[in-house]
């Protein structure tokens, strides 16, 4: 076939270029063909460094394949293919081209073997994906996209600064284990952390993803955060601080998810929760934990994509996405309902669904390494994720009270994309060995022993029981049309307000200062002119300054005349 050293992103970028010049069926065919051809190529590529050159005395490695990167490479191809099928009905060149470039950038980032290449794709991820938000073409989405872009670019800039420090300290740009014993390490961790939606830096995600287009959110949910997870797994395995950050990520978003009305925003919160499990796994850093983190990232791309697709289908067909407006859609959208429930079961980690086979690895690793309290937090988060993503999403969209909305199942291409995802969720759940064989380490882990299955089923069934009980008692918070404040309030409201007040104070002080200065000046002027008037009353009165100028001219002319006749 063709050269082995052709990195996958090249094909996607070329494809995006071709899309600009094609229309209709041809464009659809090309869009589907690109990920398929690319993954066939990837399967044949052996591990190792396939492209390397020297750039100002540093070795750059734009294409490196190993166990860790190829795992993400595969799942990004799957996500790209599913997303493309899901968006086949679109007639929007901007979205299709930017989605293709976005997928390519994600692939470029995971196969990057040096920090400079990583930085380039890191920024490309931001610039290509923001069009998927702007493509909604509303003021809200424009504003949200702008905030998203600023934060993403900030992350890239910090990464660049960290990279420069790293290159200075270690005299190499190779992207491998970095660790936290230098300034560069911390800077790069912050850059990764912003993209990974660490607490405090998480609001770009819950702010922007629900404002993106129906199809755009599906792409967005797959790539950016998972690239960050990959980067963390590469650079900081075993960094203990990640355990605590990750545990916080699993727990705090579920509270927001329970009271959030926009169902896609609920999913955005639960995305942070799922990424939290991966971050904990990376922080623990044992073979089992890393395996768990990586395989959970793999599964999450698929089931979170499925959930976003099903909610996208609801938004597409009804024009609504708020829990308070929806309900009873199982009657008219039965296929979407079933597919959504498969996604919900997967994210809740029911046995025989994909979430179970990967999440349990992280939990077991936490327990084995003696992080008891972390394990309890993860357990709480597992119950919580079932509560808000597993029950709340399908319940308020498809069941609950009948909203009276009449909709149909979405177009066939959307259904097909969801079906592929659902099939993968179940297939991985039933036959996890296929997934495990791709993992970086061989741990011989078996999720299906009686202890795990029983514990998880008990946890989930009693969470469901709690939901039913709360609902029957009327204690469950009703879905209300509302905005819930989160930390984005700081930069969306507090800082603008503070700035506004500060500037108006500055303007006022400035004006007062000038006014008093002018007043003082006027007083002095009139004082001097008065004095002058009194002094020179004999000389200056009644003689206009013009005559003065004329007399000076006359005197000068006389001088000139005299100088000639000498």
């Amino acid at each position, binding site marked *: 076939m063709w050269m082995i050293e052709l990195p996958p992103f090249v094909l996607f970028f070329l494809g995006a270029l071709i899309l600009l010049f094609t229309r209709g069926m041809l464009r659809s065919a090309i869009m589907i063909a690109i990920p398929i051809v690319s993954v066939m190529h990837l399967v044949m590529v052996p591990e190792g460094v396939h492209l390397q050159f020297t750039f100002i005395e540093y070795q750059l490695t734009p294409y490196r394949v190993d166990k860790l990167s190829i795992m993400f490479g595969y799942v990004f191809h799957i996500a790209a293919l599913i997303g493309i099928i899901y968006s086949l009905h679109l007639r929007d060149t901007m979205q299709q081209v930017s989605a293709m470039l976005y997928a390519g950038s994600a692939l470029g980032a995971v196969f990057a073997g040096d920090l400079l290449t990583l930085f380039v794709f890191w920024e490309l991820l931001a610039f290509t994906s923001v069009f998927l938000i702007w493509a909604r073409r509303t003021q809200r989405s424009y504003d949200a996209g702008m905030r998203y872009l600023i934060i993403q670019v900030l992350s890239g800039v910090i990464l660049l600064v960290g990279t420069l420090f790293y290159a200075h300290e270690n005299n190499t740009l190779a992207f491998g284990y970095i660790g936290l014993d230098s300034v560069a390490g911390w800077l790069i961790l912050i850059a990764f952390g912003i993209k990974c939606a660490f607490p405090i830096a998480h609001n770009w995600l819950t702010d922007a993803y629900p404002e993106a287009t129906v199809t755009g959110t599906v792409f967005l949910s797959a790539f950016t955060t998972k690239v960050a997870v990959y980067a963390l797994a590469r650079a900081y395995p075993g960094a203990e601080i990640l355990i605590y950050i990750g545990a916080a990520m699993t727990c705090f978003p*579920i*509270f*927001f998810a*329970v*009271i959030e009305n926009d169902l896609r925003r609920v999913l955005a919160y639960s995305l942070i929760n799922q990424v939290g499990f991966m971050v904990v796994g990376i922080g623990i850093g044992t073979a089992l934990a890393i395996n768990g983190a990586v395989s959970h990232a793999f599964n999450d791309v698929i089931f979170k994509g499925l959930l976003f697709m099903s909610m996208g289908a609801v938004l597409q067909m009804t024009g609504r996405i708020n829990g308070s407006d929806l309900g009873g859609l*199982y*009657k008219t959208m039965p296929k979407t309902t079933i597919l959504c429930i498969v996604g919900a079961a997967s994210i809740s980690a029911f046995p025989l669904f994909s979430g179970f086979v990967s999440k349990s690895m992280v939990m*077991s690793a936490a*327990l*084995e390494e003696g992080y*008891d309290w972390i*394990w*309890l937090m993860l*357990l*709480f988060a597992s*119950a*919580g994720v079932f*509560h808000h993503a597993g029950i709340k999403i399908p*319940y308020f969209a498809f*069941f*609950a*009270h009948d909203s009276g909305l*009449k909709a149909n199942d979405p177009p066939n291409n959307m259904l097909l994309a969801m079906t592929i995802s659902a099939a993968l969720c179940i297939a991985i759940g039933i036959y996890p060995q296929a997934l495990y064989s791709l993992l970086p380490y061989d741990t011989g882990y078996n999720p299906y*022993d*009686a*202890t795990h299955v*029983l*514990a*998880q*089923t*008990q*946890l*989930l*069934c*009693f*969470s469901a*029981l*709690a*939901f*039913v*009980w*709360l*609902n*029957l008692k*009327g*204690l*469950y*918070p*009703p879905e*209300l*049309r*509302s*905005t*819930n*404040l*989160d930390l984005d309030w700081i930069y*969306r*409201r507090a800082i*603008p*307000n503070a700035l506004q007040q500060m500037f108006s104070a500055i303007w006022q002080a400035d004006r007062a200062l000038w006014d008093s200065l002018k007043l003082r000046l006027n007083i002095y002027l009139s004082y001097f002119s008065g004095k002058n008037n009194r002094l020179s009353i004999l000389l200056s009165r009644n003689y206009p300054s013009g005559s003065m100028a004329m007399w000076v001219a006359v005197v000068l002319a006389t001088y000139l005349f005299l100088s000639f006749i000498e």
Partner: protein
Amino acid sequence: MKNDKKYLFDNPNNVKRLLHILYACCAILVVLDFVIHRHTLHDWEKLWAFYPIYGFVGCVVLVVIATWMRTFLMRSEDYYDNPTHTDVDKDSLNNITLNDDILNKKGEHHVDD
């Protein structure tokens, strides 16, 4: 045009049946706790019905705290769209959301009706 077709959960008995199945599953799972020998890694896991109680209590605590969070986090839907709302505490309170009526409004008994 009125849609007269009866759907699965339009019949309250079907909802009841579903709930009974759930109750039965829960009961069986607790009983299985005594039958199946677990390989526990931790002392807490040996407690009687640890996972069921943890799951149930965890979810109730989650919902109670989340509901309480509404008292200070909830604003009107167009909160960010309207930059003239400057005062955080007063504007939204006056607007629509946070009066006692709505906060104390109970969820409807969806499952039962």
